[in-house]
């Protein structure tokens, strides 16, 4: 069976633009560093469930809407 490579995409940048907040603002609200938000946003780091839920709660959207598996 051939496994297809799965990719996790996110809408953090879009949601940030809607709320008009910077990565630093978001990091402060969530309680992480700006670098952490930056790497998640660019897909370099996959956050834990806890952090994903925190982000979804902050943006008031379901987790599946914020993070999508393609």
């Amino acid at each position, binding site marked *: 069976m051939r496994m297809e490579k799965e990719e996790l995409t996110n809408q953090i940048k879009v949601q940030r633009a809607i709320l008009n907040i910077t990565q*630093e*603002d978001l*990091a*402060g609200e969530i*309680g*992480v*560093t*700006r*670098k*952490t938000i930056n*790497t*998640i946003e660019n897909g370099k*780091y996959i*956050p*834990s469930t806890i*952090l994903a839920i925190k982000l979804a709660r902050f943006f008031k959207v379901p987790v599946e809407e914020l993070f999508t598996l393609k």
Partner: protein
Amino acid sequence: MEKNDIEYFDRARFNMKLCYAIGWGLWMGLYILNNLFTDVNDNIKLGMAALFFVFSMIYCVLMIKIIRINKKIQADPDLKAALDNEYYSWLENKAMIVGFYVFGGVSGVMMVVSVIIPVSTYLACLIISYLGVLSTLTASVIFHRK
């Protein structure tokens, strides 16, 4: 805890780590070189000893600064949680893995070298721990820089 505090301490911690890696590299590097080349000119040895002393002083000062920064971070649980977040831990783990492989690799090389030429146990242990720590620190700095 201000959001600027997180970035300030994050930067401060990175800079300290960078200086710490350089300090360790030069301090212990010179010490090992001094032990490796015992039959060099006395003036060179004196110069290396002086440099070794200077770097060990720099290293001690940085060590005190790192302890002070860590104390400030420990005093604020929110700041600590923000700085030591999961991404930071993930990068630290990656750096530790690099250090582990370098440690193992250098140990293997030293074993082979000791079969060919006699190497003192003290020097071999120094080189293994020097490269193990240096690679971990360097990997950590590189990962956090990105």
